[in-house]
């Protein structure tokens, strides 16, 4: 058992949890910003549907020339704008994920480099205030997996949305909501609580 390796690892873990805390906040903020966009996307889809259902020539609006085409163009443009904004949000989510992933892999790498000096007894040693190294690595990985899962699910959903598939667009807000997993979010919050003493011991 070597002190320097262990303390270096602890240092790296502390840093990672710091990143996790920050990233988690950013992640939540970005997702909060996304939800009105998604709702408006569903709204636009509903409007398009209504437009397809109505016969404009049977309404008093028939005096406006090319009304249907114009309206449809407007709606499409709006949809495109919203999708573009959502994509921007996705890229910020991606950057969050990437930062965190890199952080986690750096920690793992550090551990792997020092496996010779860190035997299993050391890494599984825990106390009332300090979780064991194995536990902390596990939590970091779990959190990383959560970010990856969430990001991929949302990305898949958005990538498959196109302006001409109305039913998919209409159902987008619901599906977006169904992708949330409160339990995993809670887990991350729990993790951060569990390591709070460890973080303060700096």
């Amino acid at each position, binding site marked *: 058992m070597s002190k320097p390796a262990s303390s270096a690892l602890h240092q790296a873990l502390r840093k990672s949890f710091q990143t996790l805390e920050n990233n988690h906040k950013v992640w939540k903020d970005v997702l909060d910003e996304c939800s009105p966009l998604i709702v408006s996307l569903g709204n636009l889809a509903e409007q398009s549907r209504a437009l397809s259902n109505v016969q404009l020539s049977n309404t008093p609006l028939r005096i406006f020339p090319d009304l249907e085409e114009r309206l449809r163009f407007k709606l499409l443009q709006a949809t495109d704008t919203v999708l573009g904004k959502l994509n921007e949000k996705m890229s910020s989510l991606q950057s969050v994920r990437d930062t965190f992933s890199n952080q986690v892999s750096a920690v793992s790498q550090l551990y792997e480099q020092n*496996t010779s000096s860190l035997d299993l007894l050391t890494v599984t040693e825990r106390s009332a205030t300090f979780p064991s190294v194995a536990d902390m690595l596990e939590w970091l990985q779990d959190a990383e997996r959560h970010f990856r899962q969430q990001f991929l*699910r949302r990305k*898949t959903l958005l990538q498959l949305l196109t302006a001409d598939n109305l039913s998919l667009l209409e159902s987008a807000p619901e599906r977006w909501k169904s992708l949330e997993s409160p339990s995993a979010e809670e887990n991350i919050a729990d993790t951060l609580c569990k390591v709070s003493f460890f973080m303060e011991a700096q």
Partner: protein
Amino acid sequence: MKSLKLLSVDPSDRGSQRCRLGPGLMAELGLSLGSPLLVTVPGGSCLCTAWPRSDLSEGFLQIDLKCSSPSLISHPPTHLNLDPEQLKPVPCLKLKGVKITVVVQSLDFKKRAPLRLVHELVKDMLKGVYVHEKYVINLEDFDTEIRFVVIEMINMDSATAGLITSKTGVEIAGIQTVRHYMRQLQDQHTAVLGGLDEVSASLKEMLELPLLYPGTLSSVGVSCPRGVLLVGPPGVGKTLLVHRVAGEVGASLVVVRGPEVVGSRPGESEESLRAVFEQARAAAEEGPCVLFLDELDSLCPRRTGSSAPENRLVAQLLTLMDGMNQSDRFLIVGATNRPDSLDPALRRPGRFDREVFIGVPTLQQRKAILSVLCMRMPVCPSVNLAELAQKTTGYVGADLSALCREAAMHAIQENSKGSGNQAVDMKHFQKALKSVRPSCLRSSLGRTDLSPVSWDQIGGLEEVKLKLRQSIEWPMRYPEAFVRLGLRRPRGVLLYGPPGCAKTTLVRAAATSSHCAFLSVSGADLYSPYVGDSEKALAQLFRQARACSPCILFLDEIDSLIGSRSNSQTPNSVQTRLLSVLLNEMDGVGLKMLERRGTEKILQAEGAEENRTQEQLECQEVCNKDVMVVAATNRPDCLDSALLRPGRLDQIMYVPPPDQQSRLAILKVCTTLMPVDADVCLEELVAKTEFYSGADLENLCKEAALLALQEENMEPSSIKHTYFIRSLSKMSPSLSARQIQTYQTLSR
């Protein structure tokens, strides 16, 4: 070392590829956190990363099956005890590249999602996963359309496992749907099929041709056949054949069972039929596909004049089959055992292009089926399958499998009594043969359960016996000799002679000695108050007899059954109509298509040793494919002359009343079971019983025995000579000189 108890995976670990085990064991195996580990469980193995349990206890194992061999996907291991030796650390390096097949949930996604997107997603999903060649990565935890990834190949010289990083190149070899993939996994273990090689080859060809040579077919400008109708009696393996071929080719199978499609409301049935075709079309986009319409006759009966609801269903099927265009690459296979009741419009090229008849298996095919069936049974080497095949005339595949099952049951019963031998012996098959009868004879008219009679039980008549054996037994026993001399077994044998001279018993003995199927009919079976019914019954009888040929068809008292055209008062009576049916059936133009049996192809024998038996079996089939009619009458003058010509009843045998020697032989046979007193002189009895028939002599013995019982108060020790003489004095012969004279003039 202590064995490990396998527990189900913790929900929070799902998708993490972790394998939870005690830290002690980890240290023992030299593992650190997250080291790759190959776990072998019964039925497969999986690759995971070692991780200590959070409670640090030993003796338990929890595996997340993220990367496992394909068989574990459908049957995940549960509640096992594992040996620690089944855990093996594997070195895993970072991979340069992998080649994968992506399995997605819906066909819709496969069509809609661009390859670039799938590639991007899969690459993201696989990052940080340890993979093993030919294993399947389970991506269900991501909850997207992409369900599994099959690792086809990894770019590594020697290792079979490795780690995918962000720098690993991912190449997608193909995209499949989950249904298709699962079916492929299942298809790897299907039942084997014996004796239907040719039919299955032709089916396979039709399935594979358009896939292998799409360019050739389009350049020739022909469309591939797309419909096959399988016709054959029940139990020959039509359904099994289709399942088997689909499994072999790797085609997906859409099965339609008649009653499932038919709905109660008008239009419902047609709709479900359209849905089925749509389903087949969707499946065909991924690979070969077979749409199987089982029991087609119930789905598609002959259309009648009225507006029956079936008519619409038939019309829908016709239009659907016509509406298939070149791009729909699926094969429609229909199966029925009543092709005559199908709508004729179905049976034309463009709909069902080919019709394949699967007949009742021939001897060769039966042997093949039996060998396939016995493959998985512990069968004694003494069991001779060729002999068994010979004895099972008329058995279809289903009957043979029932036979094997029954034989195995007998063997198990015997084992349970204590004679520890596990193998199925020939005697078990013999027992089973008694209880399992061919199903094609089940509903037959003339099926008789005859008590076996050996030739020895018939006294005298040596000449007739010899002739009967010549015409019935020899073709079965020495087929190659018959073929060499260009001989054919006779079509029919007529036995005539005075009543009571053992004509029926002779036939019974013949049936016993040759292992033929034996059908016997009398007037009561055939006659019916409806016009045309009797003829139909007789024709049906012949059809069934042919289905299980070689077969002996016994018509007792043929004179009353079938009239003569010359001296009949009513020229159009039932008898004359029956006669015409009989004449036709015995020497008609040919067989109906449906009754064709076996295939024309002659199998190549493998070695010289095999050759000999093979040849013999072939001869046997050539010789004995007909039905043999045996008729008996005591009024041969009443028979129609057309029936008696060669080619129909060509062997005409006179069964004479017993002469002196025969009578002695008969009396000897009759008294074998009787305690006869020493003073009984059978020769004297013989001398006194001229014009006695065999039946009379049997009666005489019976009377004498009864008299003995009567006289000696039920306790006679033996039957004395006087009783014979006394009972003889009370009897008179049933034959007369004049009667015999008439028969003798006829026989000349």
